């Protein structure tokens, strides 16, 4: 009995994969049963883009915005909005409620560890973000007049922004003892990060000192990197450095501070 315990069992990898796929499938079903997540994570950003694109004149270059159009200014902000709300608001709320309800603790008593549930939820969040972003890009470029000059830079910038937001989401989940606390903390981060992304005051119109602060936030850097990619060139390495720093710092703290119960 004790010898089989120390030897890896045949087919264990396949079983772990099967468990993970089942977990992801069930979590996806649960996501589809949460209308608020679907609306704010997919519906609202897409509708927002359609409304913005339908307003006459939003496709014309504007001097005060650095020569790009209102649509091209807001497209990265809309993507950022969707990334922040799914990563920093919905993801930690789900994880904190799982911890609060003992869902994670319950999984500890099975051969599958709660890490599998965490990674399934992360994968689903990223999947939602990729799908919604694809929809936004198809609409923005195909139907309206936005253009993406450097697609590879766009993809790298988007993925770094999404990863930075998700690790911040994990950190929020880690430090929030209850789902109430997760919601409150997530809401604070949402408004601060959306402000610095330029939702209310586009970054190009911010005074220098304010844009300096914005540069240091993950949404400020992320929006700048995505905007530059749309304009056809890679953003300065500084912006990518800021995003990577957010990932490293939040990721390290989240792993250190995360509690299963």
């Amino acid at each position, binding site marked *: 009995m004790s010898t089989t315990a120390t030897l890896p069992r045949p087919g264990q990898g396949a*079983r772990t994969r099967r468990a993970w796929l*089942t977990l992801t499938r069930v979590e996806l079903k649960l996501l589809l049963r949460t209308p608020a997540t679907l609306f704010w994570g997919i519906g609202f950003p897409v509708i927002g883009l359609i409304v913005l694109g339908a307003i006459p004149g939003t496709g014309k270059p504007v001097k005060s915005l650095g020569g790009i159009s209102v649509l091209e200014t807001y497209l990265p902000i809309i993507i950022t909005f969707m990334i922040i709300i799914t990563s920093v608001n919905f993801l930690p709320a789900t994880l904190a409620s799982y911890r609060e309800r*003992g869902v994670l603790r*319950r999984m500890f008593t099975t*051969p599958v560890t709660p890490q599998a549930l965490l990674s399934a939820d992360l994968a689903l969040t990223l999947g939602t973000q990729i799908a919604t972003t694809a929809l936004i890009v198809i609409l923005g470029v195909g139907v309206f007049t936005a253009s993406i000059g450097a697609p590879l830079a766009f993809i790298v910038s988007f993925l770094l922004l999404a990863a930075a937001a998700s690790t911040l989401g994990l950190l929020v989940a880690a430090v929030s003892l209850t789902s109430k606390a997760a919601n409150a903390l997530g809401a604070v981060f949402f408004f601060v990060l959306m402000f610095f992304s330029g939702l209310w005051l586009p970054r190009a119109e911010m005074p220098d000192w304010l844009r300096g602060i914005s540069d240091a936030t993950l949404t400020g850097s992320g929006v700048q990197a995505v905007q530059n990619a749309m304009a056809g060139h890679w953003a300065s390495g500084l912006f990518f450095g800021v995003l990577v720093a957010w990932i490293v710092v939040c990721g390290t703290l989240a792993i250190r501070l995360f509690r299963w119960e």
Partner: protein
Amino acid sequence: MPVIEVSGLHKEYGPKVAVDDVSFSVEPGEIFGILGPNGAGKTTSVECITGLRKPDRGRISVLGLDPQRDHDELREQVGVQLQDGQLPEKIRVREALELYASFYQHPANADELITRLGLDDRRDTPFDKLSGGQKQRLSVALALIGTPKVAVLDELTTGLDPSARREVWGLISDIRDTGVTVLLVTHFMEEAERLCDRLAVIDHGRVIATDTPSGLAGRAGGEQYIRFTASGPLEENELSVLSEVHSVRREGDQFAVTGNEEALQAVMGVLIRRGIIARHLRLDQASLDDAFVALTQHDPAGRDAANAAQAN
């Protein structure tokens, strides 16, 4: 060989000693109860046995495995139902079972289990729409989905109404009949009395007795309580002189007598000689309840805890 062996288990949380010194062993195929007032250290003991917590001292062996070292193998063989182990609100019964089935090497058939636990008409019901009894039955189903050799069930019927409680009790007897060893944690005397083959009474982090339910009840002195209404005049001292009788209380023509196992015979003998008929005769044995109170009332704290447990 015992299925579960615990010896000298000790666990502290900071300055608080949750489990002081707990030892017991569970034989294959039995329902073994851990009985004790709230805060006695039952749940902590179970958490150490299932590998959720690392004990500070002591030895635990489950199916010959060490819960800490052989963590993976143990999880395949031991099904656990936690006191507050919940599920996501919107997960459906059938989905939860399929999900948990995917975690195990040799899962049971989810549909068969649903039928066995009487959840057939609830298979598409979300978790938060289930009644308390249905939630507990699902919880038991999840503990059994991996075809475990041992099932650990913690405070299974707390918060259930009496009929739901009876349903769940029936289920636990069925589980034992399929050859699964059951470790049942409870603070209900009635539950322990009905289900358990043997039980350990834990108080203040220590095992204060391990015995069969009737064996424990016997430790309360094997007292009998006799109540009756006498059909004719009878004096208290006519009964209290009997050596088998310990006390007599009389209110009008109603008598309440306590005594040893032969007290009933002796009292009836007196009544027959006097030509008196005992109407509304009631005979009660000392119950596990009495034993529990007797065992835990060695100090005021224990007594309070016992009263709290009974009030539940």
